[in-house]
């Protein structure tokens, strides 16, 4: 294997221009925790690595009342997990960030890296999907904002293609009486990839759930929304029977595989249970807000 050539981008423009120059032979690298693994295993060795770590203006957490939350793609996972702002207002995201990898991995890994590697088990994806996040993408032709739901194409694949960069994630401001929870089933207490991850987000009305969103990780080729499960609960008064139905629906919407972390059947069983629990926790949080 020829080791890749390493280039350093010092601005978003330079990164995009280098990427379009090298095309599919190049790959962006930030924290490198996923990429180095791929290199060491000889999977997907690119001809050229473009380092993004020195682009300081993609490392930020910003918030305002109208625009909501904006997180730069090069923000580390630990910054997200520890941000008082995210812990307060978007706690489901901080919660998931705190469950990603080990403490040392969280110090290196970035939000953009977690999303662009597009692992079905990416921990930051389900919370961002239920929060209605959007991705700001920059390319030669300019920038555009796309719903994160449309960002993932398959395992390891996103809509970015060979000439675009994920610059930031935008999350709309949260509504009153809303709450969320991310539950991650692992094989052990310490660091592990999710066997199943479930994020739930609810907006409480007087008697009924005004809105509900559910997203699932590690049970399909990409992180997915469970829209049938949501539909069962939306506008309804939640009771155990309805929760059970919703959990079953989520299990039905997934297309899990058998792997070292669990069988497809086990994952479906888990989904039914974790979806119920995540909704219940989200409601509890909403009621406490």
């Amino acid at each position: 294997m020829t080791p890749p050539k390493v280039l350093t981008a010092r601005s978003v423009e330079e990164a995009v221009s280098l990427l379009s120059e090298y095309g599919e032979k190049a790959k962006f690298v930030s924290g490198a925790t996923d990429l180095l693994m791929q290199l060491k295993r000889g999977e997907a060795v690119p001809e050229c690595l473009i380092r993004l770590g020195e682009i300081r203006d993609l490392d930020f957490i910003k918030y305002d009342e109208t625009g909501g939350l904006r997180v730069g793609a090069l923000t580390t996972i630990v910054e997200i997990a520890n941000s008082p702002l995210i812990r307060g207002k978007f706690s489901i995201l901080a919660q998931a960030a705190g469950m990603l990898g080990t403490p040392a991995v969280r110090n290196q890994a970035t939000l953009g890296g977690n999303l662009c590697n597009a692992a079905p088990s990416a921990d930051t994806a389900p919370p961002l999907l239920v929060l209605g996040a959007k991705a700001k993408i920059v390319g030669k032709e300019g920038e555009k904002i796309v719903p994160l739901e449309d960002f993932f194409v398959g395992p390891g694949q996103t809509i970015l293609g060979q000439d675009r960069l994920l610059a930031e994630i935008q999350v709309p401001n949260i509504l009153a009486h809303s709450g969320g929870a991310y539950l991650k089933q692992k094989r052990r207490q310490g660091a592990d990839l999710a066997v199943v991850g479930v994020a739930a987000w609810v907006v409480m009305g007087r008697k009924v759930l005004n809105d509900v969103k559910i997203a699932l990780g590690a049970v399909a080729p990409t992180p997915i929304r469970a829209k049938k499960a949501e539909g069962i609960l939306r506008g309804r008064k939640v009771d155990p029977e309805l929760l059970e139905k919703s959990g079953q629906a989520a299990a039905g919407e997934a297309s899990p595989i058998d792997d070292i972390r669990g069988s497809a059947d086990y994952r479906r069983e888990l989904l039914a249970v974790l979806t119920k629990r995540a909704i219940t926790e989200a409601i509890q949080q909403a009621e406490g807000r």
Partner: protein
Amino acid sequence: MSEIVLKINGAQVEVKAATTATLAEVLREELGLTGTKMMCNEGECGACTVLINGEPILSCMTLAIDAQNKDILTIEGLADPVTGRLHPIQKAFVERSGMQCGVCTPGMILTAKAFLDENPDPTEEDVRHALSGNLCRCGNYRRITECVLDAAEKMKTGEKDEK
């Protein structure tokens, strides 16, 4: 190959290494700092942990070129450089048999140092959580946790003595 300048344990060093060399490889193979251990070499075990700007990172999952212009602390730099006096965590590991085979020890101690610097008064649960990314293949977790708690105590009283 590229020319890399690293600041390790307070000293500036220049080293030639492959552009994709990891920090762990450079530390061990180019600079002879073999206190940093490489066990799984894929980010699972924490044995290669070093501190960058005071925070634990996995040197086997870090490109050496990304570690430039930052303060790197390896286990060799933890004891007092003048007196050679061990850090309280190192001392606790010696006195309370915190190591068995020793491979996880440098990573454990450095992770614990970064943790205690920010959390001087931890519970056992806090310590276990902080060390959750460091695997001990001998299964010596109970003693390791005791060592860190003991060191935390000593570090607190030590501070009082100085005042």
